[in-house]
């Protein structure tokens, strides 16, 4: 028996898309190795109603283990998953990526002396076991992980697992009463999901001008805004996590692992190095143009057109040229 256990993150009455993808992936792969996929949810009882939990059956979950506990923190979930696995002997745990997935997967690996692989882009069944593909060295190689011991932990890269509806709303809900570890209770959520800055819609834009550290400072974003303005119509400005954390641009405009995933017709990256955490949020854009002063920036490896140069020189002239073209 090779069952798979998936943690499903929820917020504001809805499940996380990456978690649902992990269930779909877990159910499909478990079936190939003679098992089934179960889910774990942890939260305030009222936020996890029976109907909501049963709906996980749609994505392939057989059972949903539901525990009352703090939301948005990793270690209470480690306690719950540890308990479920010790009672039911799941062979694999799969996470859909995101920050909590990393933390819970790593904590569970420590707790159960398990192997863990992160940034996984594909899970495959091979000789009755699951193996995980992980891109390494800036996605230039793929390393294949095989697991020894009783539990293998797979933390997916964001958007790696497709959400597929395969069943009905009939997952069996199993309530658990869990005694949490003292150290799990040492952390307390004060505020969760705070949105900072203006509410900007970048997901519907056809053209995105995205700015990173290379813009120099918050004022540098004016160049990006003017360029987006020159494209007119359905163009907007997006940002990397580094500049959002630095307070240069609003969180709602952030692309990447903890931000939004976009696929516009044109993605123009200005001063963005192209770290994996950013790449996962924009790599399916139809056309990628990158301007960066560092010729070794990883973004040049996945851009369609790359320009090595100074943004302060190029952006204003590009803005002017596009305006002229549009006017003509």
């Amino acid at each position, binding site marked *: 028996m090779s069952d798979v256990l998936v943690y499903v*993150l929820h917020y504001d009455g809805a499940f996380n898309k990456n978690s649902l993808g992990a269930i779909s992936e877990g159910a499909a792969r478990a079936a190939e190795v003679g098992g089934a996929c179960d889910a774990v949810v942890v939260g305030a009882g009222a936020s996890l109603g029976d109907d909501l939990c049963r709906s996980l059956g749609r994505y392939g979950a057989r059972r949903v283990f539901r525990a009352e506990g703090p939301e*948005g*923190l*990793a*270690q209470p979930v480690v306690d719950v998953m540890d308990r479920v696995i010790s009672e039911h002997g799941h062979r694999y745990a799969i996470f859909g990526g995101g920050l*909590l997935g*990393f*933390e819970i997967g*790593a*904590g569970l*690996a*420590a707790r159960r*002396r398990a*192997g*863990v692989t*992160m940034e996984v882009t594909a899970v495959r069944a091979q000789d009755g076991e699951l193996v995980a593909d992980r891109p390494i*060295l800036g996605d230039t*190689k793929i*390393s*294949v992980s095989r*697991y*020894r011991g009783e539990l*293998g932990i797979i*933390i997916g890269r964001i958007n790696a697992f497709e959400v597929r509806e395969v069943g009905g709303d009939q997952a069996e809900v199993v309530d658990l009463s869990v005694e949490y570890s003292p150290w*799990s209770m*040492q*952390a*307390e959520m*004060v*505020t969760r*999901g*705070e*949105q*900072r800055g203006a509410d900007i819609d970048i997901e519907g834009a056809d053209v995105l001008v995205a700015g990173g550290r290379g813009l120099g400072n918050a004022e540098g974003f004016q160049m990006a805004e003017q360029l987006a303005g020159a494209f007119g119509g359905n163009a907007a400005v997006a940002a990397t*996590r*580094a500049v*959002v*954390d630095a307070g240069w641009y609003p*969180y709602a405009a952030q692309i990447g692992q*903890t931000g939004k995933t976009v696929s516009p*017709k*044109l993605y123009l990256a200005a001063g963005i190095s192209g770290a*994996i955490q950013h790449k996962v949020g924009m790599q399916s854009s139809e*056309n990628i143009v990158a301007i960066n002063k560092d010729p070794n920036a990883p973004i040049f*490896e*996945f*851009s*369609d*057109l*790359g*320009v*090595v*140069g*100074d943004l302060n020189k*190029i952006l204003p*002239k590009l803005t002017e*040229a*596009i305006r002229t*073209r*549009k006017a003509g």
Partner: protein
Amino acid sequence: MKICVLVKEVPDAAVEKRIDPSTGRMDRSGERNLNPYDTHAIEAAMQLREGGALQVDEIVAVTMGPESAVRALHKAVSLGADRSLHLSDGSLAGSDVAATGYALAKALERESPDLVLLGQQSDDGECYTIGAVVADHLRMPSLTQVVKLEVDGDALRLERQAEYGYDTVRVKLPAVISVGDAINEPRYPSLKAIMGAKKKPLEMVSAVDVGIDASLVGADGSRVHCGEFKEPPAKAAGQVFEDENTDETVAKIVDWLVERKLI
């Protein structure tokens, strides 16, 4: 209180990284440097000490790695750590993340820190996970990718960006916290600090010294085996050129956009 900062030596960012075909492990030879994220962790420790809200008696840099890793410790000391602890043992080579976290936790147990700080990821492994592994072994609460850290009574008030926006979390000490690069601007070490770094106390310990169970570390003790490497699906390489004449550069970009009907 005592703060331990976990540091790591990584290949210099400018050096091309590769897998050694004979061992299947990352080739870690070549130019090395202190992991840039770790300098933010040291700076966070220094700011806690200088902030005065907590009495920080000692900042200890801790690393695991071969003899060469001592340079990362010297750098950490030049940035403000008081002394360092170097866990070095041939039996640890080839440890996966879970085994590495276990070994580091055993070294930390010997120090009984009130706070463990580390960089949220290493430049070579792109891995956010080591802090959470260490924390569970130490039975401490943990938070990763923290971008703001304040003292709040007997606890820390921490902020980070999570799946749905910014979270603020209060964590009682002792705790293991990994920090992101937006948390601070690390200071540059003074020449005097660089010169003096080698004179600060540095203790080297083996796996046996810190009570590591040999069956849980090294390639054989690791539960993940990565022995096979594949090429990713080929993607047509894009065109890259250098801006020499900005008017010509802009014309080329515009032509490219027009060809694709993007303007």
